[in-house]
């Protein structure tokens, strides 16, 4: 039993790794790389959010707030104060974790609409602070962020690097970094889900009352997962800031929070690989639809609506269900 669990957990991770290894063959130019790098960073954020939404069943409509905090912490620490990137990411993550814990404790007592309103407010407050503290954040016009430095290397998307003797371009280096980060994010999430904490979280989602009756400290686990998902967002926000080279308060905006939640719902709540697919689809659509000009927003809305109507469980769960049904039928026919 345990063996099978291990296998199923690692299988997904291996498929993902394989896709990430094969994908560069199909990437025609640096812009494609850039898109995939962004997808990976956003996907990793959403994997973190999914722990909260998909497994613990708690909603957060303010997650871009934590993402934005992480981005700005990194931007300010490296840009204004000359820190190097890794300490900035780590300290930023700790700071955001503490903030999430402080606000999370009281608001996670709320349920349903009240919880969504409270997380919404947290996101808004962060966005307002980033907008108004001009002296520190540059205000609504944003601020530049220096290139990512990794053990003394300046990782610029326009640079050229040599990795084990192979000459690679800046975007390829970033691609490798983003892929590794995504795999780590998924690996950690998968492990957490299968751990006692994960089981406790799922019991909270199933029924909070029942969970507390059997001795699960629901408040503790809910805050814990809230903090973990905020840390995911913070680290990814920091990476995103480095990659983009410029951030505006839009990274902490309500629209961005909604986009995160939409990725979770579209891809499939509670399915780690589903939400990655959700992130990929939602990042890809605006680029694919760019040629439709005025119709872009309409098409975007239509696709979302159709998916929600015909695939209410989300993309990946619906697809897997259909595929395995077909396969079972086929197997039945052959037998």
């Amino acid at each position: 039993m345990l063996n099978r669990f291990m296998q199923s957990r690692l299988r997904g991770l291996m498929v993902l790794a394989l896709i990430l290894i094969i994908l560069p063959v199909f990437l025609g130019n640096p812009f494609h790389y850039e898109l995939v790098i962004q997808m990976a960073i956003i996907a990793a954020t959403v994997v973190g959010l999914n722990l909260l939404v998909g497994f613990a069943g708690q909603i957060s409509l303010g997650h871009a707030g934590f993402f934005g905090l992480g981005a700005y912490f990194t931007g300010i620490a490296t840009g204004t104060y000359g820190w190097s990137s890794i300490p900035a990411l780590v300290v930023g993550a700790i700071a955001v974790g503490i903030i999430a814990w402080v606000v999370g404790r009281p608001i996670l007592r709320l349920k349903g609409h009240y919880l969504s309103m409270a997380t919404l407010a947290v996101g808004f407050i962060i966005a307002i602070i980033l907008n108004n503290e001009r002296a520190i954040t540059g205000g609504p016009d944003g601020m530049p962020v220096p290139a990512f430095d990794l053990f003394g290397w300046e990782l610029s998307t326009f640079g050229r690097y040599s990795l084990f003797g192979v000459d690679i371009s800046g975007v390829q280096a970033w691609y490798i970094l983003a892929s590794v980060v995504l795999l780590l994010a998924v690996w950690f999430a998968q492990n957490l889900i299968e751990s006692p904490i994960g089981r406790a979280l799922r019991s909270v989602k199933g029924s909070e009352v029942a969970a507390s009756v059997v001795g699960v400290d629901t408040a503790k686990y809910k805050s814990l997962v809230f903090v973990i998902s905020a840390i995911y967002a913070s680290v990814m926000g920091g990476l995103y800031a480095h990659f983009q080279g410029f951030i505006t308060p839009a990274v902490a905006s309500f629209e961005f929070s909604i986009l995160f939640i939409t990725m979770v719902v579209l891809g499939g709540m509670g399915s780690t690989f589903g939400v990655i697919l959700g992130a990929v689809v939602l990042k890809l659509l605006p680029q694919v639809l760019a040629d439709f000009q005025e119709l872009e927003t309409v098409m975007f809305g239509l696709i979302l609506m159709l998916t929600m109507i015909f695939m209410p469980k989300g993309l990946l769960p619906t697809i897997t269900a259909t595929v395995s049904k077909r396969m079972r039928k086929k197997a039945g026919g052959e037998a």
Partner: protein
Amino acid sequence: MLRTMMRRAGKCAAVAAAGLMMMSAQAAEPIKIGSFLSVTGPASFLGDPELKTLEMYVEKINEEGGVLGRPLELVHYDDVGNASSARNFASRLIRSDQVDIIVGGSTTGATMAAVPLIEQAQVPFISLAGAVVITNPVKKWVFKTPQTDRMAAERILTDMKDRGITKFGLISGTGGFGSSGRTQTLEVAEEMGMEVVADVTYSGSDTDMTAQLTNIRNTKGVEAVLNFGFGQGPAIVTRNYAQLGMELPFYQSHGVASDSFLELAGSSAEGLRLPASPLLVPDSLPEDDPQKEVVQNYKAEYEARWDSKVSTFGAYAYDGLMLAVRAIEEAGSTDPAAVRDALENIKGYVGVTGEFNMAPDDHNGLDADSFRILEVQNGEWKLIN
């Protein structure tokens, strides 16, 4: 097992790749002019006339034989007023479409988000956004066509001084435009030896600014009021100003210099002054004004083609495109470095916005005099000087 897994992975990769390939563009003979503008979304009033202008003049230039004997091709994306999509589309223009020059960036946020990337990619870029930070400090590859907010502040304060005003109250929006304008006004006021006796702000969603205006009215020694803002806010300030019966000279910024502002503010706008492009008053320009012909032609052509009123913002795109064309012609090729050098050396180009004299330390090329001071009289713009 392994085989199904591989097959599945392969399929996923193929689907993802197919998606990406749809976006590839083919290399071609024409000169590619890239553009990212806020055609939809909250800043559409900027991006829409800008795109129309670009489309129309690219067509016109191509009918007349193109540039260097090559046709122009406009590659355009809509950034919806969102800074991170502006950056992504700039990246797409540079890396995927491989454009020769970029003319775009409707808002300061969109422009600044794309600047680090453009500087690294070393592609000439002409921005259509206002704030002074875009070209100050000077960035090697970045130029811009609108006057800076600093020039607007200089122009307004000079006009105040001419009327004998030295102390004024400032009310500004907290958005990007308003807060940048506020900073510049405070700096210019200090340089010119004027005093800002009241300094209040409002946020973009406020629907009543009576409190702030009353505050200014009750300040001792205030001789005039200046409102720096964008969008709805200034129209509300103007209406509240009239409702309060304030008699002091009232100034608005160039951010509201459009006919739609007059419609919004109605009769309460009577008597207010603002710095604006000559485009609002093409026919009252004196005959010897070198801009008169350019301005009249642009207005006539735009209105004939699109059957809608011309706007100052479209004129920024006109000047941007014409500067780009001129630089490419002078460089004799589309080599980015040559085009950039040519842009930097453009002197005496008379555009709709003003006369451009670029220099290595001035990538805007305009001076404060390119703004005309207008006053609202009988519901219409009247040229003061």
